[in-house]
């Protein structure tokens, strides 16, 4: 932090210590920084305090209360949590959600990875990548409405095809067995392109020389994919994985439009159940308790993500 530096050397200095308060705080240019800084971050700070920190803390508090919105919350200790442990519907919702997450992740990650790798190998044409991103641009509601028409058991075009092949239509969204796989399929359709583009961008950062070196060392294609491509992609794959898991855990719009949680709770995912409790039955306290449970799960996933990413760093460096 040199105080008396000519302009040239100060600029040189600032590139070196960038981010750690590059310029000196006593220089005239920074005299009024403090006041201005607080003005500039004031809107963000208000937003953070009022709409993020306060509601998060209030959410934790409300989960220990009986709260029906119209009357003030009454503290009930661990009652909601005891109820949660005995709530069959909650556990079945959790099971349904985990099933959905697993299907979306396994199917979605596989298709995204294969698509990205094949695309990267074949063409750098932006039009092709542009087309596969289309479903990401539309809302879950639009995607779900369109697919519920295409999957319709009587007039849906998908069932036209299936009937031609097997003679039997499939009740995609109307049967217990198919509801969640169908919703997962719609979700994968919507997010595949987005994930593939992120993985594609990751592939572009891998220098081709690495593969040449691998070839010289006598590695075959399988070895190079497993030993070079996958490890180098790991940070990106870890990120896509966690985004998919966190997003899938909170799936709501596709379910709300296609099945509303039915038939007979077969697709009653956690977010749907929370919504139903809080806004269908005005049981806000219990809704908050379930949100807290979901919150805890997401925190654990985020934590695991950081472990996963750090592991990859020590691996590749």
């Amino acid at each position: 932090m040199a105080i008396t530096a000519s302009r040239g050397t100060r600029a040189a200095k600032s590139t070196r210590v960038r981010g750690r308060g590059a310029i000196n705080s006593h220089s005239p240019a920074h005299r009024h920084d403090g006041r201005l800084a607080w003005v500039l971050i004031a809107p963000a700070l208000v937003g953070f305090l009022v709409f993020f920190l306060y509601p998060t803390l209030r959410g934790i508090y409300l989960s220990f209360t009986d709260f029906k919105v119209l009357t003030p919350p009454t503290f009930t200790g661990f009652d909601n949590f005891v109820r949660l442990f005995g709530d069959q519907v909650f556990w079945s919702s959790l099971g349904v959600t985990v099933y959905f997450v697993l299907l979306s992740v396994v199917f979605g990650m596989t298709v995204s990875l294969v698509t990205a790798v094949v695309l990267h190998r074949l063409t750098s044409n932006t039009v092709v990548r542009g087309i596969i991103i289309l479903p990401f641009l539309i809302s879950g509601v639009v995607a779900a409405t369109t697919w519920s028409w295409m999957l319709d058991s009587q007039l849906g075009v998908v069932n036209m095809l299936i009937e031609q092949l097997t003679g039997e239509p499939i009740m995609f969204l109307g049967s217990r067995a198919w509801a969640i796989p169908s919703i997962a399929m719609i979700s994968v359709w919507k997010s595949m392109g987005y994930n593939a583009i992120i993985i594609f961008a990751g592939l572009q950062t891998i220098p081709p020389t690495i593969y040449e070196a691998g070839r010289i060392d006598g590695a075959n294609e399988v070895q190079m994919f497993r030993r070079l491509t996958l490890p180098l992609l790991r940070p990106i794959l870890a990120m896509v994985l966690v985004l998919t898991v966190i997003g899938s855990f909170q799936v709501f719009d596709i379910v709300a439009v296609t099945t509303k949680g039915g038939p007979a709770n077969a697709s009653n995912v956690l977010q749907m159940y929370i919504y139903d409790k809080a806004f269908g039955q005005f049981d806000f306290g219990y809704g908050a308790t379930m949100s807290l449970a979901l919150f805890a799960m997401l925190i654990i996933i985020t934590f695991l993500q950081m472990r996963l990413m750090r592991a990859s760093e020590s691996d590749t460096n």
Partner: protein
Amino acid sequence: MTTILKPTPRVTTELLTTPERPRSPRGRTRSRFSPGRAVAWLYIVIVLVVTVFPFYWMLRTAFSNNYSLIRDPGSLLPVDFTWGAFARVLGLASQEQSLAEGGSGASIQILHFLLNSVIYATVQTVAIVFFSTIAAYAFARLRWKGRDLMFSIFLAALMVPGILTLLPNFVLVKDLGLLNTFAGMILPTALFSAFNIFFLRQFMLGLSEEIEEAALIDGAGRLRVLFRITLPMTSGPIITLSILGFITAWNDYFWPLLVTSDDSVRPLTLALAVFKQSSPQASPDWAGLMAATLVAALPMLLLFLVFGKRIVNSIGFTGLK
């Protein structure tokens, strides 16, 4: 991965590795025919068809007569081509007309909802990007006490999922008397975005400070430097975040669902879901639904036509951060 590799190991493994032969300087791999490339292109074509077909089906159904759909559900072209479905959802068709073409009689004031969506998504996006930019500037360029602490707190918010805030924020908006208002819909997400601030700050730190310093020495005020120098230089990431933010806001369903109970400020995405849920289970007006769906998706598709390449690059770019 092994499960994918099994069926045709030779072909697929070749595909799954990135350039296995040195590329020519222009970055093109050999273009002569090989079975591997053929399978790969076939795969891409299938992916593209599965991606695009639902959009085509929307279009095809929206231009069909809803009654005739029953007669010929598998036809690849519109059945009894008509603009009727659009007239129905835009409220231009009379009751008789709409019933004659298999409408349910229910209509959706689509222009009203479209306007709501435009207001909601635009105001929300402009506000959040603007407030994030000025905050990012304070973190990137100004020296002040508590800066690093404040930044770590904001960064921690990036790690904490927002799921807990939904119900309490609803209660807050309700207590403020802001249910069924744009303010109630927009405010909670218009002020603070940890991701935006972080993203913009990182970018600003990478900008050369020399021009800014020169301007300061020439007597320009900090705010002038921010708006006349730093902001234009940050336009790339600002546009990126605006596009992604606009898409997210336009497609948002859950929050508007919580804070609106009537049609006054309801955005199109939500109105569409309500329209879908209220259409009769027995014989839904699929043509009308697809017409409404198309109108809801159209602004995004236009955005795509204009900014397609930028969107693709933005997504790859944000992913690498």
